[in-house]
Each structure stands twice: as C-alpha cells, then as structure tokens.
C-alpha cells in the first residue's frame, strides 16, 4: 500500500475509519480570474500530464473548446462577455473543473467503496478501478463536474494531479499558467495571496473583488479571486451559494442505516425519483448540447 493512502481522510461507501493521527497540511489551488487571459495552457497541460485527449470537436460560435467538461477534459475555460457597467466590456474567463470541496458531495453520494477518496491534504480523487459508473457523484456534485466516460463507463474528473502533489510538485495546470493566474500552496497561503490580490483589485476600481471559497460545501481546495465576488453567476454561472443536495445528505445519513434493517427500499425509490424529476433544473440548451 502506498504511503499516501495512509493520509486518507475519507473513502466513499466505506465504514472502516480512516487513520487520523497524522497532522498534514491542507493544500489549495487559487484561480485569480483577474489575471487569467483564457489561453487554455492549463487545459493543455492537464491533457498532456494526465494522458487524456478529448475528441477534436467543432466550433459552435464561441471560444470555448472543448465545449464542456468530459471524461477526457477535466478542466475547461468558460468565456463570458459581460457589461457590468454600461459600455465597459469585460471578458470574464473562468477555469472550470473540480473544486475539491472540503465536504465533497460526490464522495457522499458515491455508493462504490473506495471509488472516491478524500486525502487529508484536501484533494478529492476518483479511483476508477473501484468506480461502478453509477453517476451518483454527478448528482452529488454542486458544481456539475464529474463525467462518465463512454469508453469504460467510469467517472472522471480533476485529480488536482495527486500523483504530482504526492511527490512534492504542483499540479500540471498550476505550473503551466503563463500569467500566474493559477497558484498552488497551502490553503492558508492561498487565502493570504488572495487577500493581496483583492487589495490590488479594489485599488483598480473593483470594489466588490473577493475570494470565492464557498462555505456551503465546507470551503473548497480550489478557490477563485473574482473581480465581482458579489455576482459569481457572471462567471458562466458559478453558483452563488453551492451546497450538497439534501437528497444526498438523506441518502448518506438515513438510507444506509435503514438499509441494514432492510427497510430502506422506499427511500431508495424516493432517491431515484429525485434523480429523475428534480429538483434539478434541466436546461434545454444544455440538453441539446448533449445530442
């Protein structure tokens, strides 16, 4: 067993307690949207390091390519042209991908033992050898990040380059970022770095600049510096107050103990009903994109 596995904080669908003696440092990726030029170096480095190559797609009248996250694209840039002030165009470009939540909805929803791991440093990693392809992680994710591969029916997402971090290196995207919009370090240092950036942005007239580290998911190990922290939705629909769906909490908190008593069936049916009809808002646009 690899040494790093001793630093596991949580495993999906596993009742064995994790070892908890070591006091490790939490890491974080900070995405300073105000420095991002949308060059996609992070996408490129991610593909290269992780040995994933998406389809060569097409242009849909926008800069975004690949169009969406996929099992082969663990991060994508989201481009938004907005005019917060009249006649003052801003091209907000947000790197999208796994937020590595402190309280990961995917892990909570996952029924496959050991398919989703949270390390004590904060990284939430998928272990595809244990993945059963059920897709509950998608339902559990407040940021709509995991994707099931058509090739092997397993879920994939950003690993925060756990293989690099595990040997003391920064993730591939962080290293590549030409403008320093992406930085990596301890979560504490990243918060401090963000504070300096926010001071600079406020001096430049962005009075609502701030840090995005949403508490609804216990904070995240991927954070954003936003010029308009009061309106995260401007950044291609970044959720303002993300939280794990109550149904996932229900499934984890009640269903499993009930199961052992053999009376969980009704709840399970309810859970599937939830999956089928809501409370998710299905966007017509995104549905057509899938076709």
């Amino acid at each position, binding site marked *: 067993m690899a040494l790093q596995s001793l630093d596991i904080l949580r495993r999906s669908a596993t009742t064995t307690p994790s070892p908890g003696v070591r006091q490790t440092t939490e890491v974080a990726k900070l995405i300073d949207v105000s420095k991002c030029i949308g060059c996609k170096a992070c996408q490129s480095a991610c593909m290269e390091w992780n040995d994933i190559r998406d389809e060569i797609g097409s242009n849909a009248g*926008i800069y975004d390519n690949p169009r969406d996250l996929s099992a082969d694209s663990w991060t994508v840039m989201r481009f938004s042209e907005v005019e917060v002030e009249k006649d003052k165009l801003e091209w907000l470009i947000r790197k999208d991908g796994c937020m590595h939540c402190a309280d990961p909805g995917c892990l909570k929803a996952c029924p496959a033992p050991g398919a989703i791991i949270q390390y004590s440093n904060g990284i939430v990693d998928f272990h595809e050898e244990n993945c059963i392809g059920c897709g509950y992680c998608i339902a559990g994710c407040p940021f709509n990040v995991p994707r099931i591969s058509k090739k092997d029916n397993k879920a994939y997402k950003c690993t925060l380059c756990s293989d690099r971090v595990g040997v003391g290196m920064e993730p591939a995207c962080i290293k590549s970022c030409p403008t320093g919009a992406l930085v990596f370090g301890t979560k504490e240092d990243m918060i401090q770095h963000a504070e300096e950036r926010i001071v600079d942005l406020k001096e430049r007239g962005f009075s609502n600049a701030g840090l995005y580290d949403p508490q609804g998911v216990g904070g995240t190990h991927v954070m954003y510096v936003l010029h308009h922290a009061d309106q995260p939705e401007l950044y291609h629909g970044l959720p303002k107050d993300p939280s794990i769906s109550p149904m996932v909490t229900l499934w984890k908190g009640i269903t499993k103990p009930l199961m052992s008593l053999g009376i969980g069936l009704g709840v399970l049916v309810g859970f599937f009903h939830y999956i089928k009809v809501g409370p998710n808002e299905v966007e017509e646009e995104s549905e057509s994109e899938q076709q």
Partner: protein
Amino acid sequence: MASLAPTFGRGAMTNHWVDIKNANVIVVMGGNAAEAHPCGFKWVTEAKAHNKAKFIVVDPRFTRSASVADYYAPIRSGTDIAFLGGLINYLLAHDKIQHEYVKKYSDATFLVNGDYQFDDGLFSGYDKGKRSYDKTSWSYQKGADGFVLADETLQDPRCVFNLMKQHYSRYTPEMVSRITGTPEAQFLHVCEMIAATAVPDKTTTFLYALGWTQHSIGSQNIRTMAMVQILLGNMGMAGGGINALRGHSNIQGLTDLGLLSNMLPGYMTLAGEKEQDFATYLDKRALKPLRPGQMSYWQNYPKFHVSLMKSWYGDAATKENNWCFDWLPKLDKVYDVLQVFELMHQGKMNGYFAQGFNPLASFPNKAKIGGALAKLKYLVVIDPLATETSEFWKNFGEFNDVDSSKIQTEVFRLPSTCFAEEDGSLVSSSRVLQWHFKGADAPGEARGDAEIMSGLFLKLREMYKQEGGAFPDPILNLSWPYKIPDSPSSEELAKEFNGKALADIVDPKDPTKVLAKAGEQLAGFALLRDDGSTACGCWIFSGAWSQAGNLMARRDNADPSGLGNTLNWAFAWPANRRILYNRASCDPSGKPWDAKRTVISWNTKENKWAGMDIPDIRPDAVPDENVGPFIMNPEGVARLFAVDKMAEGPFPEHYEPFETPIGTNPLHPNVISNPAARVFKGDMEAFGKAKEFPYVGTTYRLTEHFHFWTKHTRISAILQPEQFVEIGEELAQAKGIKAGDKVKVTSNRGFIKAVAVVTKRIKTLNVNGQQVHTVGIPIHWGFKGLAKNGYIANTLTPYVGDANTQTPEFKSFLVNVEKA
C-alpha cells in the same frame, strides 16, 4: 525592424521579457501579447501585481490582452500613425516631454536641410511615375567641419523639434478620432496615462508585433511609437524601451545571421551591382561620426566584413583579392518574397526551396502563390511536417481546387528534425542566444537541417568538381573544416560564427600584450581585425562561444539587482548586453535618471561605466566627452527625423490601407495610401473597393495555435478545432448572422467559409462620419493536419507590402461577409 534601426541604430527589441515588470505603464498596441506571447506576457501581470503598473490596450478587437487591461480603447485597423501622431501632438502641446533627454539624446536640436518640406501628403522629392522619393532634401544642415549644425535653444524653425511640432500639429484629437474611430475621450484618456511617464523616474514600455508590421505603413507605425519613447525619455531605461516581439523562435537569430535577400550576417549588407569597388563598398558602410566625439560604431565595418570572408573562404580570401568581394552576389534590387513570387508568377523562376516554411499558407493572395509554384520546374520542401506548400499540387476540394495532372513542378519533400531532436541555439526576442540539447532521435530517416544542407551542398560541389560549370569558385573554395563533412556539428558551427584568432591578436595600445593567441576562440567582436588575422561568421554573436566555452548554455539565473537582467543566463548579443542604449538611463553627467532602477552609472572613483548590465558605451567614455548613447548612429543620438532611412518620409504620416473602407484620407484627400509602396502590375487591379467589400478584414493568430504548425498537434487541435471568423453584434444583426452559423467571407481575391463567432468584443466604429465594421479572421487553418480542414486565410489578403520591408498588408483589407 526597419524602423528601429533608422531611429536608434539597431533593429531589435531594446529591453527584454523580464524587464517588462519594471514598467509603470505598459501599452500593447499593434500586437496581442497575451495571446501570442503568453509566457512573456506574465511580466505584464507581474508589473501590475508588484509594480502597480497600469496596462493599456489599443486594438480593433477587445483581445485576450484587453481582458486583463486597466484601459482599453478601440481603433480602426491601419490607423495607428494617426493615433500615435495625435499622441505626439498631445505630448508637445501639453509639454509632457523629458526636456533634457530630448535635447541631449535625440536629434531635436539638429537643423534640417532648407529644401525639406511636407505639403498635402507628400514630402519633398516625390516622383509620381516611379512611386518613390529623391531623398536628397531629407538631410541635416552641415557645417564646414562636416558636422551637423544644431540649435541648442530649439528656436530655429528648421530644427527637427520645430519641424516635428509643425508636422503633428495637424493631428488634433478631433482629427485622430475622425480617422481612427477611437472616441475622442478614450483617445485623450490613453494620452494622459502615457504622458504621466514623461518624468525621469517613470517609464512606459510598448509591446508590439505583427499588428504594426503587417501594414503598407508598418515600419512607420513603429517609428511613430519610437518617437514617443524618445520624447518621454524611456529608451535605455529599465522598464522602458521598445519591445518588438518577434514571432518565430529564431526569427531574431535568422535575421541576425542575415538570411534575407540583401543581408549578410550581423546586419552587414550585400553590395549593390553599382558598388564594384571594394574600398568604396566599405567606405559607404563604415560611417564616420556626424557630431564631434561620437562612437559611430559602424566605423568598424571592415573588421566585421573581412572576418566574415575569412570565415567563409579561409586562405582563399586575401587582401589582394579583396577578401573575395567579387564572389558575393551583387544586387540589382531586393528580392523579398513578394518580389520573388511575382517573378515566379511571371514564370521567371525555375527552382525554389522552402525550409521550414509554408509559403502557400503564409503569403498573401493564395491563388497567386499557388499559381506561381505551379510554374516552377522544381520545389524542395524541407520540413518536419507535411505542409500545405508541399502538396500545393494536390486537390483538396474547395480548400485547394487544382488539377494535379496540369502541374508540372517536380516536388521533393525532405523530412527534417524538430527541436527535440537536435542540439543548437536559438535567439529569443530578448536577443538571448540559448543552447538546447537533443532528447531523442528523429522519426524514420529524418535529418537535421544542417545535415540536409550539407548533403545537398557536397553533392553539388562534387558535380562542379567533376564537370565544371558556371562560376564554381565560391562553391569549390567554401571553407568546410567540419570533422564529419556531411554532418557538421552544432558545436563546430557555433564556434565558427563566434570567431577565432588566425594569428596572435595584440593590443593596439601595447603590442607586447597578446589578447588572443592564434587558434583561440575570440572573447568578443572588439578583437576583430580587418587584416585577415581573425575569422568570424557573425560579429554580433561574437563572445557566445569563447575560450571560456559555450556561454549560450549558461544556466545561472541569479539576479542580484532584482531588475531581472540575469547576466549569467545564456548569452545576449551584443556583448551580453541586456538593455540596449543603457547609457541613456543616466543623465548627461552619468547619474541614473531614476536611482531605483539603476542599470549602469558612471563610477567616478574608477572612472568607468559599470552596473547591472554591460554598458552600451565605451567603458571609459567620461561623461564630459558627451559621447551619445546611440553608438551605432553616426549622430550618437536617436533620430526623431529619420533622414533618408525610410522610404516614405523622415516623419511618419498617416496613409490609408490600400483597401480603405472610407476611400479617402481625411488629412489629404489627394494622397490616400502610401505613395512610396511598391505595387505590381495586376495587383493594383486586384484591390477591392468599399462599395463591393464594405468591411475591414484583419487576420491574426489565436493563442491556442502557432501559425500552421499546431493544427498537426492533437492537443492544440482539441483546443481550437475549427476555422472561424469573428464579427461584432451589430454587423451580425444587420446580416442576420447568429453565432455558430457558417459564413462566407469574400475579398476581391477569393473567399473562405467559416463558423461565425458573434461577439461584443468587436465594436462598430464611427470613422469620418460613417460606420465601419471589422471582420476578424484567424489564420491557422488549412488542408493538412488534425484540426478540421479549412480554407487558407491568405486567400483573401492583398499582394502589397510595407514600402521598407515589404511585409504584406495582412492586417487591413476589405471584405464582404454573408451567411453561407
């Protein structure tokens, strides 16, 4: 670079990438550094984050650079001289110039020839029939001693300063806005931000690239900005200067090595056919000082030239045969690519080589280029990739609709190595020669460029040896000292261009002192001699591989000054200098204008120049001697007035693109476009008019791709897979085009079809009372590679170039757009 040399003496980026972090104001105009040079652009974000710098972008499109700018102003493509001329007018009118700098370090005080004048769009000396100028009057007044006359009081109406002031007084904010389409308030806001750095302890730096060069007035775009930098006192300063961002990884190196029609290594030039006499040839280039005490460094030309000839011909080059001067080809005119493809199109060329170059995709008017290639007897393509040029004869449907059976050109395609498979050096835009190492073998039978060139040359030489033939002397006598003749090593070649002593080199002041022993590698170009005792393949690179070894491979990144000069990282030409003209970072007494960014200073104790860079001046030049900081110019100072160095005038003037959307020039309707630009017969007729083609087309690069290479690269193809054009929302609405629609873009030379990206980032501009729309056309697609096949963007572009460099006008032409 044909604008920087006429102004400052050297045609290169003056500062370097890391130095951008020292700037107070950064202007990206005529380029899109975030998109084209992202890793260099980091020093812009650094300057913002850690130097509180303000960042300005002026561009027809709200680019990726603009996305992180403090201030963005739109401009109509091809009107940068109007904008910058207006800026000069603003600086002079508001007295926002650094007076002492301008007076001492520029030609502002110099008196100009009484016959020089500018009237209604034309400078004195114009010949309409020849479309060129007699530049006799574009000169200084000289005294009996041969030196230029000057008026230190700046009162004389004929001094450069006053002529400049008069010239740009026409560029009022109203006129600027009328021509450029930049709203007046936005123009003035940019002026104010830049003018704030006219004080000695603040600098502006400009970053530009093809957005300025690819116009029929490209060189003058850059000249105008160069004048601004003189007025602001920003040249030679850390965080100042002019950052000419080169495109390819070694375009700087190949230019330094003179791989251009009329050039020899180290910015030496080939003789014209009229220059039959060697002494006269040298004399014309070994420029004597125009002001007392100036270095006029080109005085050393004979040393550089003779050393080159010794490098090429060895013992065959002797004083008696003028070091083989006759062996070098003599020019009747410059054979730039537009000229060459014109000749090829006329059927006057038989053979052509494209080494790592894709002319079918890269040159204007694809139909003309393809037609020209089809008239060749043979074409040799040397490339790591299967390029469009190598298959110009093959039918790819609408993308390349040709009949192979009718094309008689014999085409050879020779596989070459790529960067990962070879050792050698490249010169970055910062003039730094960096050595790289081979990591793996090339695929299949691919060979390095040097090996391929040697194989061909030795085969040819053998044939000349056996059979004789036309003038075989330079072929048979070319020095070929390489240990493996058909595969010279990079080490051998680098040592050759660095230069070595052929005999003991002694100190001219003390002949007992040997500076370099016979056979030794030279430490720098100061050791070169014109008596045949030194050999050097490229004088400006001298010092790169000295007796100390390969300095290009040095890896010490220590930066003691914090300014980022890293003097022990690799090797910068000239003489490992990182900031050109750094003498100008100090006041005339040798004290830095801004102590916080001391590059060099005059050390009164040791009586020499020293500091955090190699001084760009004779190290013992006492400030009282008044040796000017622009040592390559015989004036010793920078030129606001370019004398006879530019084709279309000593002061930049706004001329419309050859395909103008407004059909007039608001400054002088009688002279609309560049009167000195060369236009071939037939190409003038192929220009479109605004009536049929009402929109401004402009081509450019995207950050996801590199020219026509990365469509062969899977990752890059994934990131930007399909050809598109960008149009503003207003034009899209008028034309009923939605994002994602297929559109057809047509110019008078052809059409392309592409997906429409509809954006707020391209605004409709109000120009001379009419609405002007822009259609943005990224260039990266073609009919070979992994990305979706597309049309070659240069199907649309006009066959006309800048009057000095013949860089094609890719950035501003006329198109129509409709739903496909």
